[in-house]
């Protein structure tokens, strides 16, 4: 596939989409996984490094309780997933962050843990946030069995049958994580872009590796238990079914503050995505094979959406629209003509843009960047960021006001005196330090709110700035008015990182936190978003990804939009 377009040379780069278009919650909440997603990047790295996997310890009993260690070695570095499986009652099983017991707890460890380290982890992993963890632990996680499917699959395999594909597709995972902590939380190792652990110096690769190994463990576990239960009658899960199993995750508000607190990083992610889109839209022509590939990916997306079933009414409607849009695109008589035109992908976009939903538009961009690794793969190196602690000293008051007027028009247009625009507030709950959304004048905690009322802060800062001498340095303005430092920092960052600010009122009545979650999850590589409310969603990671023994297969890294045949 890669050879078809070796000599592509984009001419006349297509202008990147403006932040005022991209950084709206409704669009951010329509993003899909793509080649740039972190799960995809991890698989590429594992394949490139010819990573090996080994179960170095397996002390699981026939009931599925005990511990295990799964190791992977790549680039001369060993990483161990330490697993503990616990006995819990059904009533104790909960997806909530505030749960205190889980079916399994995990940690990704650098190197091979000693007996003392394993012993320490056995005491602390099961209490997660309440424990003290080792710096050699890169992540901290826990998961529960998907009760619906785990028993069904076990019964089938132990009886010598493959599980029902419809059931597999309906759920998509055997176990579901409820948190994957990284970057120094609770004493584990800090994320370090300078580490010599080369694969893990990109954002979230430690977390992705953890989840990939959890997936591997879940399949090994079910096969092991089936053998214990069914003895000679049992069979192992087939590869095509196993490959369609990912790891579920219940994603709640805990993820939302990240997108607001890490401006430069979010800019890097979105800027990279927009750069990729711009590059492919700039391609002047594509050969027949690549045209066929594009159509194949659209077909894949169509089949994927046909198998994407959720309970949420809004999301069901969006999926139906998406599915129909893709069908219409495939059936469109102009499709081949458009792909034959100059700037075919841009032509395709322009032709359909007013006929399709946001979700469809964004899924098309994920499709468009897929067949062009030579244009896209280098971009994965620029998705990290060194976030600055100081505020750039080079601006004066006049320039800062100008930035606000240009880049924060959206904020200035919000009526911050209106009750609707002050409807919510964000705060951290004492219960497991979970971020939550409160309703102003109704819920407690308003005085402890997190500073996510960006539009309000911008307007208040502007009122102060316009009274100051124009040539006063920004630093002097802040030192005399420290209360505006937080927002001025954001404004100055936004000048050089224009995709760093969500351009909607994050405390307004119309704000749906699920859009924030979905945006971040798309960069993770999540699929099958299954919103349970405006505040949390279930997703699947690594569904369709190659299993460890398939990593060196041809097309192993080609797994956009997982689909299970005959499901």
């Amino acid at each position, binding site marked *: 596939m890669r050879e078809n377009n070796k000599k592509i040379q984009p001419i006349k780069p297509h202008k990147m989409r403006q932040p005022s278009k991209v950084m709206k919650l409704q669009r951010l909440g329509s993003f899909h996984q793509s080649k740039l997603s972190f799960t995809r990047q991890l698989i590429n790295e594992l394949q490139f490094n010819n990573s090996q996997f080994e179960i170095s310890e397996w002390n699981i009993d026939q009931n599925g309780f005990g511990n295990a260690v799964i190791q992977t070695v790549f680039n001369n570095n060993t990483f161990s997933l330490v697993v503990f499986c616990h006995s819990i009652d059904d009533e104790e099983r909960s*997806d*909530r*962050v*505030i749960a205190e017991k889980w079916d399994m707890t995990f940690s990704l460890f650098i190197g091979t843990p000693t007996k003392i380290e394993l012993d320490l982890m056995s005491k602390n992993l099961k209490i997660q946030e309440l424990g*003290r963890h080792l*710096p050699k632990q890169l992540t901290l996680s826990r998961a529960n069995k998907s009760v619906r499917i785990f028993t069904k699959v076990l019964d089938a395999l132990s009886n010598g049958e493959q599980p029902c594909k419809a059931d597999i597709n309906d759920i998509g995972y055997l176990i579901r994580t409820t948190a994957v902590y990284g*970057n*120094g*939380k*609770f*004493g*584990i*190792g*800090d994320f*370090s872009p300078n580490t010599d652990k080369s694969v893990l110096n990109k954002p979230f690769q430690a977390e992705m590796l953890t989840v990939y190994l959890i997936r591997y463990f879940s399949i090994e576990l079910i096969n092991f238990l089936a053998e214990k239960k069914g003895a000679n009658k049992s069979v192992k899960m087939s590869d095509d079914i196993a490959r369609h199993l990912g790891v579920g995750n219940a994603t*709640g*508000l805990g993820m939302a503050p990240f997108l607001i607190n890490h401006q430069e990083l979010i800019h890097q992610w979105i800027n990279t995505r927009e750069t990729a889109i711009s590059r492919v839209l700039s391609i002047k022509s594509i050969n027949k094979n690549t045209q066929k590939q594009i159509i194949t990916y659209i077909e894949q997306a169509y089949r994927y959406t046909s198998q994407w079933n959720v309970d949420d009414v809004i999301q069901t409607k969006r999926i139906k629209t998406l599915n129909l849009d893709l069908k219409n695109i495939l059936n469109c008589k102009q499709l081949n003509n458009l792909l034959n035109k100059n700037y075919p992908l841009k032509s395709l976009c322009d032709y359909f843009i007013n006929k399709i939903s946001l979700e469809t538009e964004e899924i098309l961009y994920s499709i468009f960047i897929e067949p062009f690794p030579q244009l896209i793969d280098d971009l994965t190196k620029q998705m990290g960021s060194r976030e*600055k*602690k*100081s*505020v*750039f*000293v*080079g601006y004066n008051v006049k320039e800062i006001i100008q930035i606000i007027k240009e880049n924060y028009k959206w904020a200035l247009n919000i009526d911050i005196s209106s009750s609707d625009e002050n409807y919510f507030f964000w*705060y*951290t*709950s*004492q*219960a497991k*330090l*979970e971020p*939550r*959304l*409160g*309703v102003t004048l*109704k*819920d*407690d*905690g308003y005085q*402890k709110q997190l*500073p996510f009322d960006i539009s309000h802060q911008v307007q208040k800062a502007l009122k102060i700035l316009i009274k100051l001498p124009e040539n006063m*340095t*920004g*630093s*002097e303005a*802040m*030192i005399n008015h*420290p*209360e*505006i*430092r*937080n*927002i001025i*920092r954001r404004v100055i960052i936004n000048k050089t990182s224009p995709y760093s600010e969500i351009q909607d009122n994050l405390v307004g009545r119309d704000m749906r*936190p699920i859009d924030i979650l979905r945006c971040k999850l798309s960069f993770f590589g999540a699929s099958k978003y299954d919103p*349970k*409310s*405006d*505040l*949390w969603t279930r997703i699947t990671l690594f569904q369709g990804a190659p299993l460890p023994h398939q990593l060196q297969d041809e097309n192993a890294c080609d797994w956009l939009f997982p689909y299970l045949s005959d499901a």
Partner: protein
Amino acid sequence: MLTVSLNEIYSETYKALRSLEIDWGLAKDCANLSKWLANHDQYFLGSLLKTADLYKEKKLSVSIKENNLKKPLTAALMGLLLVEYVSAKKITWEGYLHSPKFMLASMSIIAQEQNISMVLKNSDSDIIAYTNKKNLYLDTNNFNNLTGYFFLETYDFNQNYNPLSIVLNQKTEVSKINSKCWDRLSSMAFETYVPESETSKSGAGY
């Protein structure tokens, strides 16, 4: 002693300061300075807690114009702003500073990030620290963390400064800190969390 990550130091620090209603911008600045000190194997927690206590008692100033020996400017909260201010205006600032070690962190950060070199002098105009080419140089014999009168200015490349020792860039990945002090910091941070109630559960989406 307790081992904590740099990320924990950052988050507990700014939350603890927020419990005193210190502005978000200053709280985060101080958190970054604390993290820098920890990352360079420098004690910081005692000074940080002292800063919190004195701030609460209104014995610290957050004004560059109004500070004296009894109410010095807090380097922990204002250090980063001060180095930005001095370098933007290309002036010399002089005044009383509490916990000047936070100035070392501030000077180093702005040197690393914005390539701005600065000089810190004591009341006798002796250089006690400076940054040059992103390195921090410290007169370890004459530097202490006591409140005093200081001069802060941008580095003059036409001047010859006496060579001082480079602060060893010992980038530790974890910090060993006094557990009692950490408990105190954590309990302050805890005050910024909202107690759970039945209605608040709906704000988590379940």
